[in-house]
């Protein structure tokens, strides 16, 4: 029967979902600040990769303990959504456990649900411990791990625990009520069964507990959904498209800028006709920077990377520069890109990058410039990179940190000629002698002098 409660529920759900859609549109707009790039080739390989890396969590298993704990939370999230669906239907139509008609399947689902919910609580508790007590270095340290990222992670974990407890409160009270009324509750509840007497045997209290548990769970989920776009937890959505659009080429292949090719060919071959320059809607030629100074110089995929980052720090923990105490942290590059993008574009409901920018920036001598380069990321960080691809390899959601580092470097060199002096010397050597060292090109074949091999008889 549809009553006032159902109407309130409908309004709450509509507001929650509406707000989420509004936020997603902002995110989409931000990502589309980026340059266009063509990543639609080879859909079968992309789907394969998505199944393995995103759905299958393949790269998580490079580290066993967090992978298993994360798997509990991930599978818990997927399965518990079935109960959320039921809650939605119950909420709208005033039904009670509407999916109960499925009989043994429903029982099985609810039982799995309960076990997973308990595992989620355990996993989240261990995650909280790792962040705040044992302080796993990659989670606790780093210049980019300022107040917001640390708080954000704890908010997520505590919310997840509260949501699971609300679910249990609802199930326990529901179970006891059915017992008191002497009828069978559809479903099977192995965990709640253990605590069936937790809220006493007063029908009135139990009905309140069930109601409160139910409402906390559903409002919690709607609030959580709207918190996502402000949070590193957004990866639960973005991981899938980000892996789908990830680089299929060998990691060693860096992008080639065709505009430069045309320029050089025109220089080498006077008769060469470069294609007409791109024009914008008004017919003015599009002036494109070489490399990236700010977020609009990066591609939409590089911007999507920054929405996908869950700040786990695996990239930074394997970065040879970071390991040896250099300023570079690949995670910071990605987090800075996100902050700058939201400063320049739009920000989601809760997180406002400027509010948190000041909190605890040590050793990174950024300037007041309103650009990603220098305003967030300094040349010192960029020049520490060995382009070894360890960060890219380590990322569980296929973020390409190196491509962003390289585009920023290119801007420094091509637009500002701001390479370190030793690298400028290397460039000069290549230009003059065809080698990065100052040896005359005419000596290039000297290695072959006086070379012998044992003769075969």
């Amino acid at each position, binding site marked *: 029967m549809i009553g006032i409660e159902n109407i309130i529920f409908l309004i709450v759900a509509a507001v929650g979902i509406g707000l989420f859609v509004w936020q997603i549109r902002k995110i989409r707009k931000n990502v589309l600040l980026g340059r266009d790039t063509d990543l639609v080739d080879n859909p079968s390989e992309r789907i394969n990769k998505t199944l393995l890396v995103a759905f299958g969590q393949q790269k998580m298993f490079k580290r066993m303990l967090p992978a298993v704990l994360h798997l509990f939370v991930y599978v818990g999230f997927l399965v518990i959504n079935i109960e959320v669906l039921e809650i939605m239907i119950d909420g709208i139509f005033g039904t009670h456990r509407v999916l109960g008609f499925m009989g043994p399947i429903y029982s099985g689902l609810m039982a799995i649900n309960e076990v997973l919910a308990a595992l989620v609580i355990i996993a989240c508790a261990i995650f909280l411990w790792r962040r705040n007590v044992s302080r796993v270095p990659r989670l606790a340290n780093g210049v980019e791990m300022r107040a917001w990222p640390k708080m954000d992670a704890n908010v997520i974990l505590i919310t997840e625990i509260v949501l699971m407890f609300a679910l249990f409160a609802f199930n326990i009270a529901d179970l006891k009520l059915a017992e008191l009324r002497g009828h069978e509750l559809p479903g099977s509840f192995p965990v709640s069964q253990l605590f069936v007497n937790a809220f006493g045997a007063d029908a009135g209290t139990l009905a309140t507990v069930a109601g409160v548990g139910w409402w906390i769970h559903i409002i919690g989920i709607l609030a959580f959904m709207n918190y996502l776009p402000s949070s590193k937890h957004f990866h639960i959505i973005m991981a899938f498209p980000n892996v789908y659009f990830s680089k299929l080429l060998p990691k060693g292949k860096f992008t080639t*800028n065709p505009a430069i090719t045309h320029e050089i060919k025109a220089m080498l071959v006077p008769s060469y006709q470069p294609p007409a320059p791109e024009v914008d809607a008004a017919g003015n030629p599009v002036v494109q920077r070489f490399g990236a100074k700010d977020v609009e110089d990066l591609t939409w995929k590089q911007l999507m990377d920054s929405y996908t980052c869950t700040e786990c720090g695996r990239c930074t923990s394997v970065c040879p520069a970071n390991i040896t105490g250099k300023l570079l942290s690949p995670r910071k590059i990605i987090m800075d890109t996100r902050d700058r993008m939201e400063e320049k574009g739009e920000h989601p409901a809760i997180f406002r990058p400027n509010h948190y920018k000041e909190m605890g920036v040590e050793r990174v001598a950024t300037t007041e410039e309103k650009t990603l380069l220098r305003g967030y990321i300094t040349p010192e960080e960029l020049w520490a990179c060995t382009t070894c691809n360890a960060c890219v390899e380590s990322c569980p959601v296929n973020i390409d940190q190196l491509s962003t580092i390289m585009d920023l470097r290119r801007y420094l060199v091509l637009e500002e000629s701001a390479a370190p002096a030793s690298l400028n010397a*290397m460039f000069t050597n290549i230009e003059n002698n*065809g080698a990065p060292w100052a040896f005359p090109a005419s000596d290039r074949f000297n290695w072959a002098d006086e070379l012998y091999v044992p003769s075969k008889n």
Partner: protein
Amino acid sequence: MEENKRLIKVPTMAQLAANGEEPEILFWVGCAGAFDDRYKRVTRAFVQILEHVGVKYAVLGTEESCTGDPAKRAGNEFLFQMQALTNIEVLNAYNVKKIVTACPHCFNTIKNEYPDLGGNYEVIHHSTFLQQLINEGKVHVQGGEAFKGKRITYHDSCYLGRANDIYEAPRDVLAALDADLVEMKRSRANGLCCGAGGAQMFKEAEPGRKEINIERTEEALATLGDGEGVIATACPFCMVMMNDGVKNKEQEQNVKVFDIAELIAQAEGLSK
């Protein structure tokens, strides 16, 4: 023993072209292979192997020029493309089809980045090439120095490993030595960079606690344990960095750094 060895006259593409011939492979020497005193020995060892097995090969000699890799990784796309387009012109003029190189940076650049600029070749790293020679029975890995029981640890080059997923070929080559191969904790896809990639070879490191090559050398030395051992590399920059690391740790009496081609040449008795 003079009569038992013969002088190698390394053929160039220009000489072959003058005779209307084409080699089976072009050996791309690379700048380190041509100029770095230590790495020249690797180039020479590899040529000895090529001569020994009788592959029809040639080099570009003084016509070779930097692939542009260090410029590209340093962000100088303009200089990179300048080098690439010039090299591609030379390679295409000689109708080159198949290139073998001992340098993972040259390998990666020619294989992955030249095709966009009109240079399409079959590019093989010398680790894969040596693996093929061993598999085909052309190199027997005997007649020279015995490596049985010697401890060897292989250091993955980033531009061979993660960049191009070549992890097994150099290990298979080393396995043919019948030595005691030991793996560092950070190996294959999780290998730690030597510190020279991304044009770091040509600049001072940024301020930090430690040099990357020291971090890596310490790991290699700990893996090899006490006594004699070999750090095997397959990249000229890795070789420089690991050599410097071993010297820094004053272990050069015990631990030698060799390229896999040198080890094969030694085992085959080519480098007397």
